């Protein structure tokens, strides 16, 4: 009996203890607290990948792909071949730190369209493409992109050609939706909904047949699945312009909006939102700034073209300020060619301008805009394959300073200051004219890598 009692008590105690044991803490959810957004095309600054959707090498034209880097870097070029199973064409260039370099596409592949991408081993870095030959067109490659790209500035009037290129350098097919609006309203582009772009390939969409006689056409591209990099090409007259799409911003700066021989120049502002947006345009002329030269309202889902033909002064640059995010480009056309490029959404303390050079009869020009009210002192470093040629300039407030490329050895520019300013470049020649925005360098701790004192090199 005693034994039974003892056993019962023991068992009961064990049962109670077992029942009272608290369950352990559950393990944390995997990746708890970690937000992993679906990455876009962005890559780290010190190992950036730049995508160049528009490069061509054929019998009548060739492309120079210019690269520039602040740190010594290897640049590996890859040009996918749009034939499944075919290996891509590859090339390599090396830049000093800082320095500029580049390749001529025809040395690598001569098969017409050859969009590609460049992988840098260090940075910050940047790249641009200049197409010469029967046309002269240039613009920056892109290393990052918005969720939705906007392409204002094109038109499909008679004799013009507007082509949207969708470049997919990734191993998975991309699905994108292309939409647009123009001066007549939102365009019906149902057939361009969720269109597929094969892996490591590209697809061109011509709008001159789809949307004829549009004077101011704004195209937008959004990725539904996968990733792709769009670019727009506009052929008007004998020249061609290509430009990368823009995001939306409340401010846009254009250090260059006009050039000799480009009579019809102006800004194209696109408001994709469902509300009207008020915009104010400051102009920077050779005679000085004209603040709020234009104050306009852009209706919802509408473009607005602001021509400078009626402005009495010679307009060189412009700044757009909007009450809500808009997209804006400069579009210029004339006997000297056709030029379109996007603006810079903000000023910066350092700018890289890869590919800015003289190339035979084609003359490159650096444009620096000080849209503020204070004087800005800048250091201009001409990047070559060897030494860096430094010089200093003072930018008066509200002015644009053009600087012609002096040496044929120059392959790009690095411009820096302790203050914020804007930069762009142009190239002009017998075949046409091109405008290219500068590429702002990321800032760390409020300073630039040059810290306003220029880079080691030669002071020119």
């Amino acid at each position, binding site marked *: 009996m005693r034994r039974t009692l003892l056993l019962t008590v023991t068992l009961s105690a064990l049962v109670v203890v077992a029942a009272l044991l608290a369950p352990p803490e559950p393990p944390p959810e995997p990746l708890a607290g970690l937000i992993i957004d679906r990455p876009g095309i962005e890559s780290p600054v010190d190992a950036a990948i730049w995508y160049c959707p528009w490069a061509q090498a054929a019998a009548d034209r060739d492309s120079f792909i210019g690269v520039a880097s602040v740190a010594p870097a290897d640049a590996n070029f890859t040009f996918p071949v749009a034939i499944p199973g075919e290996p891509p064409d590859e090339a390599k260039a090396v830049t000093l730190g800082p320095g500029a370099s580049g390749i001529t596409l025809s040395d690598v592949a001569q098969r017409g369209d050859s969009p590609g991408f460049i992988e840098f081993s260090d940075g910050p870095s940047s790249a641009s493409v200049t197409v010469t030959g029967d046309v002269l067109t240039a613009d920056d490659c892109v290393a990052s992109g918005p969720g939705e790209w906007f392409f204002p500035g094109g038109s499909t009037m008679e004799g013009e050609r507007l082509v949207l290129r969708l470049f997919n350098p990734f191993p*998975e097919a991309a699905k994108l939706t292309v939409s647009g609006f123009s001066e007549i309203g939102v365009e019906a582009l149902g057939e361009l909904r969720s269109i597929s772009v094969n892996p490591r390939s590209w697809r061109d969409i011509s709008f001159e047949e789809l949307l004829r006689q549009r004077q101011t056409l704004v195209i937008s591209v959004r990725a539904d699945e996968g990733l792709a990099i769009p670019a727009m090409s506009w052929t008007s007259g004998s020249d061609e312009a290509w430009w990368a799409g823009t995001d939306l911003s409340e401010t846009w700066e254009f250090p260059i909006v006009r050039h000799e021989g480009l009579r019809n120049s102006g800004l194209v502002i696109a408001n994709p939102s469902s509300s009207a947006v008020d915009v104010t345009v400051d102009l920077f002329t050779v005679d000085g700034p004209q603040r709020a030269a234009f104050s306009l309202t852009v209706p919802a889902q509408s473009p607005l073209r602001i021509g400078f033909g009626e402005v009495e002064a010679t307009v060189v640059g412009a700044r757009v300020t909007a009450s809500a995010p808009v997209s804006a480009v400069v579009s210029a056309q004339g006997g000297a060619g056709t030029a379109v490029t996007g603006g810079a959404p903000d000023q910066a303390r350092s700018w890289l301008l890869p590919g800015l050079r003289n190339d035979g009869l084609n003359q490159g020009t650096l444009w620096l805009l000080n849209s503020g009210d204070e004087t800005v002192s800048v250091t201009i470093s001409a990047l070559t394959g060897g030494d860096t040629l430094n010089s200093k300039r003072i930018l008066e407030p509200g002015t644009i300073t053009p600087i012609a490329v002096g040496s044929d050895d120059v392959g790009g520019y690095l411009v820096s200051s302790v203050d914020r300013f804007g930069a762009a470049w142009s190239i002009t020649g017998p075949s046409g004219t091109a405008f290219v925005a500068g590429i702002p360098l990321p800032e760390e701790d409020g300073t630039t890598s040059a810290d306003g004192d220029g880079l080691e090199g030669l002071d020119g």
Partner: protein
Amino acid sequence: MSTDSSTTTSRASAPSAVAVVTADDAELLTGCLEAIGRQVYGPSKVFVVGGDETVRRVAGEMDASWRPNLRGIYDSMGPGIDYVWALRQRARPEPEALRFLIEDGARVDASVAGSKVVDAANPETLVSVGYATDVFGAPHSGLQAGELDQQQYDVIRDVASVADTSMLIRRDLFRGLGGVDRMMPPTSAAVDFCQRARLRGARVVVIPSSVVQYVGKDPSARWRERAGETRAMIKAYSPLTLVWALPVAFLVGLVESVLSPFVGRFPLPGLFAAGFWNAYHLPSALKDRWNARRRREANDEELFRYQVNGSARLRALYEDLSERIRARFPEGVLSGFSEAVEAGQQRVRNPAFFVGFLAIAFGLIATRQIWGQHLPVVGYSLLPASSPTAALGAYAGGWNPAGLGSPEVLSPSVAATALVQFVTFARAGGAVAVIIVASFVAGVFGMARLLRAWGIGSVSGYLAGVVLMGGPALGAAAASTRWGVIPALAALPWAIGATIRPWSGSPTTRVARAAGAVLAIGVVGAYFPVALPIPVLAAAAWVAVGVGRRSGAVVRAAIATLLALPLLMPWILYADLGGHLTSGDKAFWSPAFVLVAALAIAVAVVVVSGEPVLSAIGGWGAVLAVGGALVARLGGFGAGAEVEAAGELLAALGVALVVGTALELVPRRRQLSRSGGRFVMLGALAGAFILMTTLLLGGPGRAGLPADEMSGSLDFAVPVDGGPTRVLLFGSGVPGDTRELEGLDYRVIVPPYPTTLESSLNEPRLGDEALAAVLQDMLDGRVRRAGDALAPFGVGWVVFTEPSPLQALFDAQLDMVPLRSLDFPVYRNEVSTAIAVDFDGSAWVPAGTGYRSADRRQSNSVMVAVNADYRWGPGAWEQSDWRNVVAAPGNRVRFKPYLPRRVMAIAAGGYLILLLGAWGLGRIRRESP
């Protein structure tokens, strides 16, 4: 011995014969010589062969010549002798036996003639009228047990063999074959002699008119007869026949070992003993073989002529089993089960056999998916490596291939399973199936045997065994995917039974019992080391609550456990034992409330029943069950998954004990007091309820293991040609041990799925840290060519076992191709990679845990993408980052084993053989009369 002229026929021109009697017993010899003396056709001489001084003296007294061996007879026969009449000392030939042998044998031109043998105690009962044999040399008499002689076999027939009780052999044949092999027991020696005779073209017949009575029973041990049969095969058969016949004979022996327990025999130790005996005596067998076959006039086809199909032993076993079934079931019951049910319980007088059969059937049903298809590949439920040699080599100081590899020790279950795999001809799935099915059967019978020691009936014992091996506690343990819990649990009742009972008897018996206990605990330790303390705990609990003589149980259990530890070398010395206790999901078993309630009812009924032994056992079981449940809930104190499983095993043991005692109360209820017996049926119901829950485990047929998750899933990643690549797996369904990336499980495996060699990952080494760094870089957005970054690790594929936000990182890579057509997210690495690559980029293929050139070309150097270790070779070794570069390796690279660990593993193997030998010797001595 003098010949009696009144009874002797004149043989002036008749063939003459000498009688040769093999003897070792003087009394038996006397009777035989007297019978020879009464022959109407007397032999011209009588020889006695063998025996001691008394035999020799008896031979002399009866005028027979004594010789120590047959060789002495050849020289003493003298000329003019035509036949040798070989007799055994238990033979009592009737007066005309020799005459008929000579006359009828000569008439049919027989070279060997045998007599009809009847039982001396009952001369109407037939013992032998010649034998057929099966292909394995086992004799098949064709007689029913106790069959009466009604002259139904009285015709001279060619047979495969005659009984060596009385054989008339032509003298030249007798000499040419060297007589009967004295090393072999009688029956197999006769078969051997007749086979050799037939190879020489001799005719072997039985002469039924020659009748010999046989005194007593054949005393030779069964295992000796088996050994003799094998020796006869070795001597007679062609190499081509031996190649298949010997292995199949072994398999037949295994089958016999599985079924024989039903008839109270345990031939397994004898099977191995026969094998060892033949191995030891192989040289003499080969010498006799050469002698037998060099002058043969016939081939194996002649031997096959008088052989029965199949196995004579299995046939005899089947007949024995059938007889026992018939004896247990009254006439008519077997004709319809429904009639048996209607007939009522009282018609089933001894259901133990039936329940035992059902228990085995349950075991087969509960594991049918494993032996019928394959082991479910999920979690830690993994198949062994395809090569048991490679597995043993890896265990014995070799390379651990898990993840990016390391020299860390492997689990002892790898070695244990590899040993079984040799028996299944290297079939990995077969080995696991054998282990699991055998475990179920062994666990059931072990539990019955354990309870039988306290007088608990077989029915209750078998049912308790079913609860042990199929109950919810094992189900919970197996749900952790560690299939090693099954053999560990099966061995526990054997281990506990062997340690709770005193090691009494002769020294040999004591050693055998101790060895048995050590072996059983060794099985527990090999397959589930965390369960090693259970026998000691169980013994301690028994000492605390048990009845009867139980002192020393804890000491015996502790000694056996300590003695079992060397079996686990080298693992026991190098393993992270603490890690085993804390790794995995935290322990917290929550058994279903209804089961707890049923158990509580059963315990209460048993404890208050008043039956002292059953109460004690029930209380013991309750302590084990509750204690085990408590251990399985210690997750809050850091206990890991293996501790939970060990607690569940302990609980399973306890539950089985309680159920066994609760069910045993039913047949004993009339012996209980009024108060104690009042609730017996309630307790039995509770026990039956728990028994019913075994259906939950038996239903799926996976022995409690979860459903397969990996078989076939990664077949796409297996290269058709070229060297293998690794798969980087992410997600909760990753098999075996995993590493973590921000809480997300991952590891690398070689497709199609990892084996047991790869279940446990090593402590992170350089390569593992490098891979973790690459993955962290990806998380930080710093990598856009993940394929290029993962290629040095040999990763050709990235697979997510379930959708994960991490996929977004791989979607945006320039060199990882997503495959959308599969059931789960997969990314293919476009960068060419392999685990082992030589200097010109050719991938090397696996060779065990090493690698070799695919086309066996020599190479100058090879890069092996495993954690660097200087023992990779041959050739000069160099570390490249975290990998190995071996210069001038020839066409093979391998890991040079750690010699101390290899020695320890070999020592453990030798220790195992010693233990088996000690245990087997004890069994054999108990089996032999």
